Every structure is written in C-alpha cells, then in structure tokens.
C-alpha cells in the first residue's frame, strides 16, 4: 500500500505541475520560451504516465492511468502543495520550476538505485530530461534575479510567496518513512542539504537572498490541499466527469 501511495504521490506532483505549466501554452513571454515551458509539460506528463501505469499495475483492481488522473477527488491526490499553486507571473513559474527540478534531480539520482526495478527505471529514464529542466530553470532564475530592477523585484516577490511551500519536499510522510526504512526509496530529508546548496549557489549568481526560517506548509502529500487544487481538477477532469469513459 505504501508503494502505491508513494508512486501516486510522484505521479500527482508531476501531473499537476505539467497541467500548470501547460496553462502557459500560447501565453509565453516569447515564442521560444512558450515552446520550452510546454515541452517541460510534455516531459512531466510522460513521467506522470509512467508512474500512474506502475501504480495501476500494483493496485491491480482495474484502475488505469486515466482513472487515477481523471476520476479521483482532491483528497485522493498526494501531490506537493507547491505544484498546485497558481502560476503567477513568469518569474514565479520559473522559480517554482527551479525548486521542483532541483528536488527531482536529487530524488531521481537516488531513486535510480532503488531495489524497486520499475521506480528505478522510471527515475533513470526521466533524469536526463530533469537535468535539462534544471539547467534551463537555473539560467532563467539568474537572468531574472540579476536582470532589470523590475525582473528582480518580481522574482523576489515570487520567492517570498513560494518559499514556505518548499519545506514539504523534505518532510517525510508515513508512506515515505516506511519505504525509506526498508531502503526502497530515499528519505526525503536526506535530499535537503544538497538542495539548499544548489539553491544557494544559483541565488548567489542571481543576486537573491535565501529567506530565513519561516513556517512551512504541509499536507499535500497526505491529501490536505490548498483551495487551488479544486480549480485545476475542475478544468483537467471536466471532460471525463461530464462524459464518463469518453474516448476519441
């Protein structure tokens, strides 16, 4: 059961960030970056599909990648709160992507050593793409942070807004603890030091200051969400809710 919840948790975070990033389609600041952010969405939805397919196989009750994505309610989603937040401006979208890619890069690097063959295979496959995302988002954080007064002000505002949602990545919940104790997956807490180092390195280049200790929001990985998730699900699930089982 823990393995199913863990796999769904990874799937949900990648799916929702994919959905959020795809909202930029046709609205990117320039064409190349519009294409970039939607390509990221495509990579993330590919990862989500792999995790959902694996969870469906483990659950073995007729669930499919589609029933997981389209027919579960908010409380059944185990994603990080960070990814369900509205996009905000380009600076906020970029900063969130950097936080998430930095986390994914560390997580997948360790997860490819997992004794669970399928999680290991998905992580190894996705890691190449995540390295690309990390590079792209790092460069953009620097460009905006060390850019104009306006771009600096905006990404700094995004930083104050998003930072309290970064702690959740490293605070293990019950299914993560259980699997980490078995040695199947990395303990999320073990990723924090490297994540902070990378963040500090990019922030120094971007002329941004790491916030001090603040209250960190949690709950997403156990189904307690912000009000924003309902709006995403309403849009993402509309078709299957209105016309159950529709295919084309």
């Amino acid at each position, binding site marked *: 059961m823990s393995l199913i919840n863990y796999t769904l948790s990874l799937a949900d975070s990648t799916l929702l960030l994919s959905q959020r990033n795809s909202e930029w389609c046709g609205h990117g600041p320039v064409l190349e970056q519009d294409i970039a952010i939607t390509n990221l969405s495509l990579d993330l939805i590919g990862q989500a599909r792999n995790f959902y397919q694996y969870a469906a196989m483990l659950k073995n009750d007729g669930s499919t990648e589609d029933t997981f994505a389209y027919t579960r309610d908010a409380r059944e989603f185990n994603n990080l709160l960070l990814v369900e937040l509205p996009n905000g401006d380009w600076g906020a979208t970029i900063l969130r992507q950097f936080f998430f890619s930095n986390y994914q890069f560390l997580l997948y690097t360790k997860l490819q050593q997992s004794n669970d063959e399928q999680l290991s295979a998905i992580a190894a496959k996705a890691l190449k793409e995540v390295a*690309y995302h990390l590079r792209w988002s790092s460069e953009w954080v620097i460009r905006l942070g060390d850019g104009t007064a306006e771009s600096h002000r905006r990404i700094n505002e995004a930083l104050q807004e998003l930072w309290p949602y970064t702690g959740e990545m490293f605070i293990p919940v019950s299914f993560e603890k259980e699997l980490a104790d078995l040695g199947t997956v990395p303990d999320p807490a073990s990723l924090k030091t490297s994540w902070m180092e990378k963040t500090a390195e990019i922030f120094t280049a971007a002329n941004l200051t790491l916030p001090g200790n603040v209250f960190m929001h949690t709950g997403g990985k156990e189904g307690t969400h912000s009000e924003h998730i309902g709006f995403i699900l309403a849009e993402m699930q509309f078709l299957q809710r209105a016309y159950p089982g529709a295919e084309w």
Partner: protein
Amino acid sequence: MLNGNKMSGENNMIYPVDISTQPVWNILSNIMDPEVPVLSILDLGIVRRVTVNDDAVEVVITPTYTGCPAVDMISTSIRMELLAAGYKSIQVLQVLSPAWTTEWMSEHGKKKLREYGIAPPNNVQQVCHHDRFVNDESVQCPHCRSWHTRMVSEFGSTACKSLYQCNDCQEPFDYFKCH
C-alpha cells in the same frame, strides 16, 4: 542472441538475427517514426527485442523521450504491419530500462537525418549537463555544413529537438538534442 546493451550505433545496427525473426525485422525496418518520417524505428534504435513462436510475435520497444507521444502510434503501426503480414498473436511491450540514448541511433539514420535537414546528435553531447551556462556544443549546420552556428532555444518543435540557427547561411534548423 545479443542482449540490448550490446546494440551498437556504429555503421549498421547490429541486430540479433535468426531465421525465425528475420522477416519481422524486415517489416520493422519499414516502419517510420511518425515525427521524423525519414527514420525507421530501427534507425532510431528503439526496438530492443523480437521473439517469434510460430505465428506469435513479441516486440519489445523503448521510448526515446519520456513524454514522446509517438510511442503509442509506433506500437499501433507495429501491430498493424505484423497483422497484415499474417501474424496472429502480437504483443508490443514497452520497457524503460536501460534508458534509450542517442548513441543507439545508427550511422545510417544520422546520415538520413542530416539529409532531411535535422542536425543529428553529436557523438559526445555537452548540453546534457545540469549545470548552468555550460558552453554550447558545436553543431554542424545540416544545410551548408558550417560549424558556425548558435543555439536559439534548448527546446524545439518536438520533445527530441532543440532549435539552432546557422550564422553563415542564416537557415534555422533543428538539432536532435542530447539524451
């Protein structure tokens, strides 16, 4: 039979061939990638294994990029072509490990890509690295063969490509990005 790791992108692809699977490999060599229609799925190096038992066939493929939407279409094409050839029971399985790499693309495939106007992957690719502002690698213009080119965007028209422009002939072109 060679296992998947032994497959080499050098010269012609070395595929495990025996009498029973040869006709299947021949059929697969005519199935094109829907997004880069000059490349067969063998040129791409995504077919990992073929097993044949009378009229039952199992084909194992691996996706190029995680989110590549062409994989489902390729699976369908394989099934259709094999059905048309008279095979009754056809299984097309997808595996993720070991992960596909551009090194598995055949030399023949790279040549066809260049002729099609897409710069093939370099043997050693630098932009895979996660560090910021790593020097862009030299990519040869597929049109005028100049090395005097620059990256326009790390992401391009499909998941497998990034966008470049030639500083000499000024033509924009796609580069099959690192993986």
